[in-house]
């Protein structure tokens, strides 16, 4: 980042950070800008919580899921998880079509929000979701924008705000990276591990502020972004009156907006909200619902078109595991790469693709060489893919030779699915489904394909299982074919 912001531009650029949002451990409110599912953000958030010792944590999330926080942090619950929000627009508040709306809010092991919630649970301090309830967000969003975008699976995370604009195309060109995700990995995920938390937060604020500057205000209004920030700012102001050290964890894009809407009170501690208060609609609570559910890495992968945050969650999950295990930041990525090269090689040999241990060695040394050539502190997922392409593919790269690469892609996406604790409230259909799977002994905690042979004329249990599978097929949920 440093080379990009040198010279006379710096004083102007510093104005990009909204006043009051700078990383200040002595303030009554500490803003922590994050990118969803980012290991480096989780890494620094843990440090910030340790240093700041907040007595209340506010998290960006629709507040109608407040009561589910204990489920998310329960020790039996394992990510990947999601909160599933639904709203039945029977009164035509959103549009005269009176449709049903739904959206997912995924949580992975490396999600900063989950990290924050877990810390909260450990320390016994209150945590709150401070975003508008789901249906209010819908009501405040223009048709086919933001969370109401048609044709896409709806996720709550709005990371796209950070990566789609002319600014980023230029940025990518200047820094010699192929796309935004590579830029993010090089300068934040990898480089961010070796800087102090205050420096990291400063760079996040700069970056998010710049991306905000390049987004037209109308877009922000249509996306529902401004409305949500007003509501969140109101909540922050309220909490700052009640608690003396409030930590605010939101997507980095919003931090600037929040900073603009709040100012220090002259008549006491805490902040005052200077925007227009948000008036909520009166609705029948039965129309809105939210459930926790087990989720899968595959579903969370942005590459699958679900734009929920970072690509290849399986890869970053392994990075996070190593960070949690206490590995030195300089070693984390190399160790992760070794893990994937070895696993991919092993699986490839199982499927009779010819990948030898020597190929893995060459790939690893190529990844390190590429990282050095590209000025990256450690090799990341792009170097992993590049080195596998060079070393694992023998011959012209085509559908017949890319078996090993597809295996690698599956591994970096991840095959894990999560698990909820036993007493979590589930939608009844889902509860019955899990119960039946348990009765039949089906393994449902991995998204890897499994084959079953059933003797439906010989065994009654198999006949029932066959019927069950056909029932799921009828529902069109892709569980069985």
């Amino acid at each position, binding site marked *: 980042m440093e080379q990009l912001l040198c010279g006379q531009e710096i004083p102007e650029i510093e104005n990009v950070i909204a006043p009051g949002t700078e990383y200040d451990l002595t303030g009554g409110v500490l803003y922590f800008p994050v990118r969803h599912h980012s290991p480096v953000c989780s890494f620094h958030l843990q440090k910030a919580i340790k240093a700041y010792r907040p007595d209340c944590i506010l998290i960006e999330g629709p507040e109608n899921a407040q009561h589910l926080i204990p489920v998310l942090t329960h020790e039996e619950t394992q990510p990947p998880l999601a909160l599933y929000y639904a709203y039945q627009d029977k009164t035509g508040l959103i549009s005269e079509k009176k449709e049903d709306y739904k959206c997912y809010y995924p949580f992975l092991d490396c999600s900063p929000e989950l990290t924050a919630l877990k810390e909260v649970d450990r320390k016994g301090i209150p945590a709150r979701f401070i975003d508008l309830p789901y249906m209010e967000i819908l009501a405040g969003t223009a048709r086919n924008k933001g969370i109401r975008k048609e044709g896409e699976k709806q996720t709550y995370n709005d990371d796209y705000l950070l990566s789609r604009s002319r600014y980023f195309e230029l940025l990518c060109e*200047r820094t*010699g990276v*192929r796309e935004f995700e590579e830029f993010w990995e090089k300068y934040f995920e990898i480089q961010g591990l070796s800087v102090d938390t205050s420096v990291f937060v400063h760079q996040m604020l700069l970056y998010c502020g710049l991306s905000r500057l390049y987004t037209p205000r109308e877009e922000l209004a249509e996306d529902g972004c401004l409305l949500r920030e007003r509501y969140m700012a109101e909540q922050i102001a309220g909490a700052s009156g009640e608690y003396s050290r409030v930590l605010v964890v939101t997507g980095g894009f919003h931090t600037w907006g929040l900073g603009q809407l709040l100012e220090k009170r002259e008549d006491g501690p805490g902040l005052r909200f200077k925007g227009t208060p948000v008036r909520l609609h009166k609705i029948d609570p039965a129309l809105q619902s939210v459930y926790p559910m087990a989720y899968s890495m595959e579903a969370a992968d942005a590459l699958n078109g679900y734009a929920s945050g970072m690509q290849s969650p399986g890869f970053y999950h392994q990075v996070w595991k190593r960070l949690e295990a206490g590995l030195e930041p300089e070693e984390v990525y190399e160790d992760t790469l070794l893990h994937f090269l070895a696993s991919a090689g092993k699986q490839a040999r199982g499927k009779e693709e*010819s990948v*030898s241990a*020597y*190929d893995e060695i*060459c790939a690893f*040394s*190529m990844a390190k*060489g*590429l990282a*050095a*050539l*590209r000025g990256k502190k450690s090799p990341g997922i*792009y170097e992993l893919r*590049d*080195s596998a*392409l*060079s*070393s694992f*593919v*023998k*011959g*012209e*790269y*085509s559908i017949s030779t890319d078996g090993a690469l597809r295996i690698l892609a599956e591994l970096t996406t991840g095959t894990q699915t999560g698990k909820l604790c036993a007493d979590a409230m589930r939608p009844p259909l889902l509860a019955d489904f899990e119960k039946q799977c348990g009765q039949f002994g089906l393994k449902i905690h991995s998204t890897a394909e499994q084959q079953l042979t059933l003797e439906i004329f010989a065994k009654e249990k198999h006949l029932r299982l066959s019927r069950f599978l056909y029932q799921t097929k009828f529902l069109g949920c892709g569980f069985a074919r």
Partner: protein
Amino acid sequence: MDYKTELKPPVEARYREELEALQALDTDRKPLNWKLSPKAVRTFILGSREPLFWNGREIRIRKKYLGNDALVERCIITLAGSRGLMLVGEPGTAKTMLSELLSAAISGTSMNTIQGTAGTTEDMIKYSWNYALLLAKGPSREALVPSPLYVGMEQGILTRFEEITRTPAEIQDSLISVLSDKVLNVPELGEEGLLFAKAGFNVIGTANTRDKGVNEMSSALKRRFNFETVMPVRDVTLEKQIILNEVEELARENQIEMEPDEDVAEILASTYHELREGVSSMGHRIDRPSVVMSTAEAVSVYYQTMLTAYYYGDSRMDMGCLVQNLVGAVQKENGDDLEKLRGYFETVIRDKGGKEGGLWSSYYAARKYLR
């Protein structure tokens, strides 16, 4: 050697200034015996935004390979390692050009090359003898005439092996032991006959994939290389840029004082792109000709038309001439291909001519030459 009158000066001569400047200003670590560091090699091939100041002059490093920066980076790192580099792909995708650029930048010469043909023998790869001297004085290093592989190993420079898959399989396989053990044995010289490769030695191979007369590579040989597939250019704007760049250079080298015409380049790039992909810009399916529609070919067609305009015309590109040259390029193997080209003109070009007018209309009008 004065390269000014040569038909095609080698890369190291054409870009001598850039290479000298890069070498003088290079401060990064170099692998043993490399003339430039990997970062500098990358800059040489991919260009640099800022000009270099050297010897009192401002030197701009042009981007010489357009299309895939990551590919170039991988090639550089492969060559610094223990495996060879094999560039494969369709004909006309700039594999040879990339191989020359890498060789010139890393070893300072792109001429240590073996041309693979069906008649390539082991002596053309490894070494042969000066028979007169051999008979007169017996076997000695003096009597040995090194071939490019021997030279590469002895001097620690890159050896280029063009069209490696055209050579018979047995000949290809003689590379296997050299690439694994990095040692060449000359039995006639006894103990002194063991040549250990010096640091800096490596092999860059190129192979066409879609062509007649191409043999399979054995798996044993494949394992000694990192393969990089060079794809045809997928982006029309990029293809247009490549045509313009190449033609500009050709014109400069041959003292043709004529500016390349961007609009004509765009039409040509669009034609080649659509015929290669098999789909028009409006999304309609097109019958693809069986002949390979490569970017190198497009450059040729453009340049020929340019020469005609310069020498025979009034230095303005003539669409009729362009189409005639296009026919020559397309009609190489199959009479059907000309039919497909005609069909393309009657549908896609007619629409474009109607919509855009101007040059596109003249292009469409020139279809009478599609015979």
